[in-house]
C-alpha cells in the first residue's frame, strides 16, 4: 500500500558531473573575450558614426594641438641647435658684450673698452692652452658684380685660425692663409648664397666682387651651405682677411676673439683667457672684468628656459583639451551603457562576468580615443608642416611626440571610460534584463 503512493518513476541516479572551465581555457578565454570586445567596440563605432565622429573630433583637436605646439617648439630647438653648432662647442668668444645679458646692465657693458688688436696679440702671446685664436670683426654691406648688387651681406674680417673655431667648411678652393693676413691680399671666401647669386653658371674661383662702396676682392674659396637658422640664411656671408677688412671698413672696430679650447679643457682655457686679459688690461684684483668670455652653453641655458616655458604651456593646453575630450568620451559612454542595459543583462545571463563587461566598454572608450589620437596626430603633423611652409619657423615631428600623442589619447580613453564601464559591470543582471 505504502509503495503504491510513491512516484512511479524512481529518481534517476545518473551521476552528474560538474562542468568547469579549465585553467588553460580560462587563459584563452581572456584573449577571446578581448578579441570579441575589440570587434564589438569597432562595430559600435560604425553603428554610431555621427556620435563617435563628434567625440573623436574632440580628442583629435586636443592631441593635434599638443603635437603641433610640440613640433613647433622642437623645430625651434633644432634651428637653435644648428645656430649654436656654428659657434663650435669648444670655442670661447671674448667680447665686450655678454651673451644673453639683460637690459639693466646694457649701459655697463656699453661703457666697457672694446676688444681690439692689442687683446688679440696678448692672447696669441700669453694663452698657451687654445689650439687656435681668431679675431673676428663684422659688418653688413653690399656685394656685387657690376650692376648686380646684393644688400645686407655679412662681411667678416678674420684670419686663417677662424676655420678651426668651427661652423664653416670650405667647399671649393681654399680658406685664408697667414700670408693673406700679413700682406693684406684681396682674397675672399664666399657663402653658398653669394655663389648662387653671382656665379650661377660660372666658375666662382678667381671671380672679382665689389665689396662695400670702395674695395674689390678675388674669390679664392667657397663655403659649404649651412641652411637657415631662425628663418635667416647663414650663407649670405663673405670672409676677408682682417687687415683687408680694416682697410675697407675701418680698423678701429670692437672685435670678438674666438679661442678654440682643447676638448675637455674648456674651463681651464676660459680661466687662462681671463688671466691673460686681466694682466694685459691691468685690472686690479678687486675690480671686475671689463670683458666677457662667452660660451655657447650660456645661450643654451637661457634658450632652454624659454622653450621650457613654451613646453609647459603647450602641455597645459594639451591637458585641458584632452580633459574636454575625455568628458566627451565619458558622456557618450554613459549614453551607450544606458542604451545597452538590456544587452548587458543578456550577456550577463549568458555567462559574461563583470570583468568581461568592463573590458567591453573600456575597449569601446579606448577605440574612440585611439582613433581620435590618430586623427589628431595626423592633424598636428599637418599643422606643423603648414607652419614650416608658410612661416620662417621650422617644425620637427619627433617620433616620441607621436607616441606621446597616441599614448595620451589612449590614457584619456581609459581614464574617462572607466566610470561608465564600471557602472555597466556593476549592473545587476536581473535589473538589466528588465530595463526598458
Amino acid at each position: 500500500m505504502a509503495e503504491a503512493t510513491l512516484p512511479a518513476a524512481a529518481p534517476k541516479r545518473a551521476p552528474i558531473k560538474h562542468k568547469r572551465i579549465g585553467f588553460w581555457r580560462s587563459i584563452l578565454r581572456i584573449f577571446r573575450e578581448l578579441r570579441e570586445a575589440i570587434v564589438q567596440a569597432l562595430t559600435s563605432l560604425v553603428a554610431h558614426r555621427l556620435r563617435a565622429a563628434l567625440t573623436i573630433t574632440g580628442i583629435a583637436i586636443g592631441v593635434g594641438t599638443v603635437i603641433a605646439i610640440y613640433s613647433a617648439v622642437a623645430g625651434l630647438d633644432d634651428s637653435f641647435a644648428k645656430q649654436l653648432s656654428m659657434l663650435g662647442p669648444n670655442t670661447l668668444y671674448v667680447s665686450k658684450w655678454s651673451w644673453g645679458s639683460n637690459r639693466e646692465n646694457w649701459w655697463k657693458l656699453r661703457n666697457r673698452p672694446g676688444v681690439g688688436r692689442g687683446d688679440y696679440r696678448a692672447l696669441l702671446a700669453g694663452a698657451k692652452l687654445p689650439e687656435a685664436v681668431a679675431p673676428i670683426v663684422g659688418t653688413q654691406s653690399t656685394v656685387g658684380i657690376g650692376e648686380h648688387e646684393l644688400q645686407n651681406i655679412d662681411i667678416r674680417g678674420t684670419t686663417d685660425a677662424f676655420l678651426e673655431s668651427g661652423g664653416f667648411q670650405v667647399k671649393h678652393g681654399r680658406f685664408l692663409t697667414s700670408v693673406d693676413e700679413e700682406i693684406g691680399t684681396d682674397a675672399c671666401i664666399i657663402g653658398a648664397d653669394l655663389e648662387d647669386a653671382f656665379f650661377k653658371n660660372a666658375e666662382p674661383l678667381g671671380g672679382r666682387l665689389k665689396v662695400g662702396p670702395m674695395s674689390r676682392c678675388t674669390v679664392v674659396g667657397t663655403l659649404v651651405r649651412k641652411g637657415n637658422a631662425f628663418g635667416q640664411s647663414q650663407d649670405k656671408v663673405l670672409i676677408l682677411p682682417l687687415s683687408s677688412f680694416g682697410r675697407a671698413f675701418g680698423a678701429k672696430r670692437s672685435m670678438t676673439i674666438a679661442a678654440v679650447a682643447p676638448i675637455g679643457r674648456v674651463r681651464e682655457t676660459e680661466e687662462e683667457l681671463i688671466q691673460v686679459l686681466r694682466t694685459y688690461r691691468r685690472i686690479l684684483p678687486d675690480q671686475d672684468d671689463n670683458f666677457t668670455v662667452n660660451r655657447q652653453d650660456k645661450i643654451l641655458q637661457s634658450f632652454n628656459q624659454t622653450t621650457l616655458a613654451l613646453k609647459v604651456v603647450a602641455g597645459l593646453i594639451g591637458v585641458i583639451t584632452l580633459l574636454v575630450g575625455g568628458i566627451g568620451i565619458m558622456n557618450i559612454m554613459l549614453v551607450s551603457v544606458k542604451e545597452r542595459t538590456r544587452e548587458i543583462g543578456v550577456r550577463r545571463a549568458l555567462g559574461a562576468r563583470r570583468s568581461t563587461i568592463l573590458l567591453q566598454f573600456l575597449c569601446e572608450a579606448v577605440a574612440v580615443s585611439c582613433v581620435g589620437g590618430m586623427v589628431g596626430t595626423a592633424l598636428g603633423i599637418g599643422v606643423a608642416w603648414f607652419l614650416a611652409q608658410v612661416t620662417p619657423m621650422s617644425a620637427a615631428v619627433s617620433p616620441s611626440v607621436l607616441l606621446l600623442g597616441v599614448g595620451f589619447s589612449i590614457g584619456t580613453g581609459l581614464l574617462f571610460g572607466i566610470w561608465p564601464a564600471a557602472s555597466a559591470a556593476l549592473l545587476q543582471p536581473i535589473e538589466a534584463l528588465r530595463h526598458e
Partner: protein
Amino acid sequence: MALIELQHITKTYDLGLSKVHALRDIDFNIEKGEFVAIVGQSGSGKSTLMNILGCLDVPTTGAYLLGGRDVSTLADDELADVRNLEIGFVFQSFQLLPRASALENVELPLIYRGVSPRERREKAKAALDRVQLGDRTHHKPTELSGGQRQRVAIARALVTDPSLLLADEPTGNLDSATGEDIIRLFLELHAAGNTIVLVTHEPKLAARCPRAVRVVDGLVVADGEGQRVAFENQRDIDAAAAAALAAQQQMASGLSQREPGTGAHHG
C-alpha cells in the same frame, strides 16, 4: 541525486520601510530529464524563483543544489560561470542582440567559455540546424519573424549543451500558432533528454508539461502531473482574485469619497 535540489529557499527584498517576502519556503527537487512548468499569477514569486533557478540571484536563506553543488553561496563571477556552463536561458522577449546575426547571437555564450572562433561557428550552426533555422544564419533579428527569433534564442540556449533549459514565458510574445510550434520544439527537446523548466502564468501551457509546480504567495501549493496541477486550484484562485478585485474597488470608492476639498472626515 537530483539535478536540482531546492532546500527551504526564501527570498526577502528589503525595501527599507517594508520587507517583501517573495519566496517563503520553497522545497522541491527536479530530476535530470524532467520537463517542469512553474506556474503562478504575477506577484506569486515565480519570477523570483526563476531568477534563483537561473543563478541570476541567490536566495536569502536555504540552499540551492545544482548537480549536487550548492550555488546559493557563490560569488558573482562563479555564478556567471555556472550560468554559462549549466543553464540555457529562453526569455519572453527573445533578448537577441539587435546588431548581431543569428549565428553571432548563438555564438555569444561560447565566447564566455573561451571556445575558439572556428569551434564556435560549427557549434552555433549545428544548434541553428536543430531548431530548423540552418538557412537563416546570417539574418539579423529584425529580418526574422517572432517565432524565428525565439528559435534563435532557443538555439543560443542549446549551444552550450546546458544541464538545464530555463524558459520564461517563451510563448508570451507570440501568436498562438507560433507559440504552439515553440511548445512542440520544447517537447521534442525534452524527448531528446533535456531538462527543461518553463515559467508561465498560463495554466493551458503548464498543462502541456509532464509536471507542474504551482506557486502562490511564495509557497508551492501544488506539485504533480501538469494537467492536474494546472487547473486544480484555478477555481480557488479565481475566487481569490475576484475577492481581491472587490476589495480594491471598495478601497477606490472609499478614497473617492475623500476627495480633497470636501473636508469630510469619516469618524
